[in-house]
């Protein structure tokens, strides 16, 4: 049995002996290294990232423009349309209504408008270099009235007609 093992050992050593690698192997490997997908990925991923960021920024910019367009549409459509129904949202409806209904010479930047209660808003502005405030309210018919003081506003809220007039 040992002679069998010796014969097998010798035969395995002979048949599985090491060989010389082909001479062209280095050139082939260098070529493969040049077009290595891992290296290509090093270029592709930053490019894809830049494209993704650009697309995202463009999307946000377009969304901003769309929102501004909607606000402009609401303003140009008049107070009735701006307040037409609950679509404007319970939170933003008074602000939109104020922007649409107050006189043109009053500032209507969002920062100057504060909500005072559910359907009352206050617009801060400057009059003769002094701070002033315009109050606004709406009734059930989605019209409203403006007043220069809370007392005047309460009167207006109770006594104005369906067109927002006292």
């Amino acid at each position: 049995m040992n002679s069998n093992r010796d014969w097998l050992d010798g035969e395995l050593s002979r048949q599985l002996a090491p060989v010389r690698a082909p001479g062209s192997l280095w050139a082939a490997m260098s070529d493969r290294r040049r077009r290595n997908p891992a290296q290509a990925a090093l270029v592709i991923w930053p490019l894809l990232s830049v494209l993704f960021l650009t697309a995202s920024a463009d999307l946000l910019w377009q969304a901003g423009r769309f929102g501004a367009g909607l606000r402009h549409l609401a303003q140009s459509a008049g107070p009735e349309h701006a307040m037409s129904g609950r679509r404007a949202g319970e939170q933003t409806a008074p602000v939109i209504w104020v922007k649409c209904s107050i006189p043109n010479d009053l500032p209507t930047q969002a920062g100057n408008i504060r909500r005072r209660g559910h359907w009352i808003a206050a617009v801060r502005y400057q009059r003769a270099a002094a701070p002033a405030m315009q109050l606004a309210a709406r009734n059930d018919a989605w019209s409203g009235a403006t007043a220069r003081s809370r007392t005047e506003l309460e009167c207006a809220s109770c006594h104005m007609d369906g067109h927002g007039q006292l």
Partner: protein
Amino acid sequence: MPVLQPAVDNTEDEILEGCRRGDSESFRALFELHKDKVYSVALRFSGDPAAAEDITQETFLKLFESVGSFRGGSKFQSWLYRLVVNVCFDRKRRERRFLPALDQFLDALRAPGPGVLDEVMRAEQAGHVRTAVRALPQEQRMVVVLRYTLGLSYEEISEILGCPKGTVASRLNRIHQSLERRLVALADRRGKRRFL
């Protein structure tokens, strides 16, 4: 067992240091130093020169990418052989993924039985024991290649394959018995008792 001598003057440590610095000449020197052994393992494992070239290239590409992380905790050769063994097994796994039916067929051929015997008979007729080795399951085949192609000790093989030394010894013993049985059966069938 024949051992290939590298035709490079620099010591391996100097070459490795150059590779860590990204020196292309050092990469070339490292390649020249080990290409024959890596190619031999790949060829004896796969049995196909084209596949062996592919495995060798992949092994060295991985080596060049990761040589910076080699800090000499173990012998460099063991680290390199582990790399080539993994590339061989990975390639086999990829082939299995793409050709499962063919692989099942080949496994059936490798299972003990008349199919293998016929294959061994053909191998013996052609005078190639290595064809019989190729019929072994890949883990057993790799042990045989590391032992007889590279001439590694049981300890070195156990370090490369990540298994105890005793497991290598028992695995080689089983491989020998298996090959002996097959070759004896072959000799009996051919009426020649050359093997006994």
